[in-house]
């Protein structure tokens, strides 16, 4: 069984976000990047399937700053193979999931996997999520918001999560695309020594001829939310903040 897991880097959202001059994107020059937390779960699920039932896992990423290290981490976590897709940044208007979806799809056709696992959302999926786009491009069944994947010979059984904690188990024929929310176990820790062993590994790169899909990025302007009308803020040092919280709780009969 061949599994492809798609990995994407995202801004670290605990850092201060700033806008570019034209307000069409966030300024990514100084912001830290990390593996999309749902892609992290997807990678773990792929490796868990490999360990329990046997599979060949390929981690796939579109070339960007930091992708090399990202894919080496995937190898350290149990991926058998990695592949970086090079894209021409010149004139590239958007790297949204919608825009990049035909490029991923072309690489997938080349690899011809039985199962594609990708994080259910990224934090900037303004024009739709990658998983259903890949399903539609490939003409394969697709299920989003999945928290468990079990494999059989020619099908998988996934658990699709709904609001309120309800879930449904669905048998899906392969090949298929799954938008993963949670793996059956938390993502594993990778020792620094294991990563250092992979420092000299060359990450293979492939080209595609597909063009990005048009999205609405030229029609979008970003704004930071106005937080001035939100919460009444407790100011001051720790003791002062604690005193203010305590008073509030007392006033409301909660302390």
């Amino acid at each position, binding site marked *: 069984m061949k599994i492809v897991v798609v990995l994407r880097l995202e801004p670290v*959202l*605990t850092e*201060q*976000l700033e806008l570019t001059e034209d307000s069409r994107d966030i300024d990514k020059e100084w912001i830290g990047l990390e593996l999309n*937390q749902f892609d992290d779960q997807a990678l773990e699920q792929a490796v868990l399937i490999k360990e329990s039932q046997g599979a060949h896992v390929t981690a796939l990423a579109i070339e960007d700053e930091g992708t090399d290290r990202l894919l080496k981490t995937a190898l350290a976590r149990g991926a058998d193979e990695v592949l970086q897709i090079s894209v021409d940044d010149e004139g590239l208007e958007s790297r949204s999931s*919608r825009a990049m979806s035909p490029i991923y799809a072309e690489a997938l056709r080349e690899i011809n996997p039985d199962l594609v696992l990708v994080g259910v959302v990224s*934090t900037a*999926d*303004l*024009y*739709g999520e990658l*998983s*259903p*786009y890949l399903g*539609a491009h490939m003409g394969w069944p*697709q*299920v*989003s918001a999945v928290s468990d994947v079990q494999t059989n010979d020619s099908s998988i059984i996934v*658990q699709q*999560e*709904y*609001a*309120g*904690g*309800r879930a*449904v*188990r*669905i*048998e*899906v*024929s392969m090949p298929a695309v799954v938008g993963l*929310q*949670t*793996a059956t*176990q*938390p993502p594993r820790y990778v020792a620094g020594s294991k990563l250092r062993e992979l420092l000299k590994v060359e990450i293979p790169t492939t080209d595609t001829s597909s063009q990005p899909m048009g999205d*609405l990025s030229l*029609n*979008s*302007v*970003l*704004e*930071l*939310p106005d*937080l001035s009308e*939100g*919460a*009444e*803020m*407790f100011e001051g040092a720790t*003791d002062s903040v*604690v*005193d*203010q*919280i*305590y008073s*509030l*709780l007392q006033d409301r009969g*909660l*302390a």
Partner: protein
Amino acid sequence: MNTVLIYVEHVGGVVEDASKELIAHSIGLCDQVEALVCAASQDQLNGIVGQLFGASTVIGICDERLASYTSETVLKCLNSLIATRNPDLVVMSYSSAGMDLAASAAIGTERNVISYVTELKSDANAVNAVSQIYGGKMFAKTEVDLPAVVVMVPGTIDYAAVIEEKEIPQLEVVDVELGEVVRMTVVGEISPETDDVDLTKAERILCVGRALGGTENLAQFEELATKLGAELAGSRPVIDAGWLSKARQVGKSGTKVKPRLYFMAGVSGAPEHLEGMQDSELIIALNSDEQAPIFSKAHYGAVCDMFQVVPALVEKLD
């Protein structure tokens, strides 16, 4: 704008609140609000029509293979209706089904998609959408040319207030050829976990977020929960990391709560979390990030190191 087609989600004939909100969002945008309902039977369909006040027409498709949602069957219904009726706008909820269907239908019917929308206004041959992205830390304002697909964030409109004095919609049953359904089969349903706690019954909740860092830091929050008489809960990353049980998850894919006190420590306030707790009576939020979107929803907040504030508050509550 002439027509908006909304996709109605229901569980065994009970319409999801998020789907009713789609009607409220659509009224005022267009002349006709059409509601697509995929039902297992005519009886089920009839029961659903009475729950969709405010829609102009319910377009019902009945087939026993629609008893449980799968994207295989519903996407066939949706794409067929879009092709035959050509609505200006197709609207669905930011839900598991909404995620399955929006981009897929957009590809199938060659439309643009705009997601995570909290506000929608009509403007001649376009709609103007406000979306929340980057975990709620950024708004995107987008002009969307019609026809298009829009995905709305639940909990952003008061359905009851908008549909007051509206009438029951007309019902139009249509046939859609589902063909062979061979790629997806529902093989089981799982009820919400309430093993060790039922958060919906809790009057006070202390919710911890990803900033917790690991179970080694949990004890001080358990102590604060005890002092507050609160149940301990977690945001999705806390549950995914295995630091707390699934029954303690608040948010989109966890439990929806409305306690007297919702005390949040290290929860950023992504839209998916807000969906589960924004109606709480008193929301207090601690976060080290002054841009954390929770500060736009909380009643009181502090930009602080929760690992200093929480033990000091425990001491104060002694």
